[in-house]
């Protein structure tokens, strides 16, 4: 697996370059997910966001997601780039590209990737609202961390 397929960067993400990383002559389908900064969340207005990462571990976790995907859907290839730092409305925060000979797998694997990012990749978002600021946690809203032990972060077999 090419390590540069999983990156944390501070500059704007070039979507095409992420797609290029997974494009190959055997794969007829490439799906991408582009996560952008939303202006309104439940009636509250965002001015800008700040993303912070534990960079070396975040890259490791992205690589792990890539590995999980290639095990679940063989023949797929994955590239993920997450941007950190200060982002304003409609800026691209994350791009996930998955290529596959079969489109079904390309969609499924892509959706799996974003779910896993929200579970295990050490990146945090600080919302700067019109009327205050907050660090956001637990976006999935179904991850409970009793005793700081979400099983989802452990590789199968470790527990």
């Amino acid at each position: 697996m090419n390590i540069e397929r999983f990156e944390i960067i501070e500059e704007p993400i070039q979507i095409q370059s992420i797609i290029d990383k997974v494009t190959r002559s055997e794969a007829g389908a490439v799906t991408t997910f582009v996560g952008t900064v939303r202006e309104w969340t439940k009636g509250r207005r965002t001015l800008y966001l700040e993303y912070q990462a534990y960079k070396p571990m975040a890259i490791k976790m992205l690589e792990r997601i890539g590995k999980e995907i290639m095990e679940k859907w063989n023949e797929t290839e994955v590239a993920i780039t997450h941007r950190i730092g200060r982002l304003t409305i409609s800026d691209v925060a994350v791009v996930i590209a998955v290529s596959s000979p079969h489109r079904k797998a390309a969609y499924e694997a892509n959706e799996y990737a974003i779910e896993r990012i929200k579970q295990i990749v050490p990146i945090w978002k600080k919302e700067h609202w019109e009327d205050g600021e907050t660090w956001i946690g637990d976006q999935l809203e179904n991850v409970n961390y009793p005793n700081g032990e979400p099983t989802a972060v452990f590789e199968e077999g470790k527990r």
Partner: protein
Amino acid sequence: MITVLLFAQLQEEMGKERFELEINELSVQDLKELIKQNYNLNQLDHVMVAINEEYALPSDIVSQGDVVAFIPPVSGG
């Protein structure tokens, strides 16, 4: 000695990104207790711990030279 890394709200609460602790060996759980009591960090209950960039269990042992990161619930994507 071990190195402790802090992120997001923990970093702001503590006013720093990292600090060092003169300890030899203790469990993740005991380390959390120790830090709660000595450093006035109140939000550690829902915080995961990583040792050397891998998630750790409460029973895992932190040893000399390890880098321990406190990982509040993540919010990337």
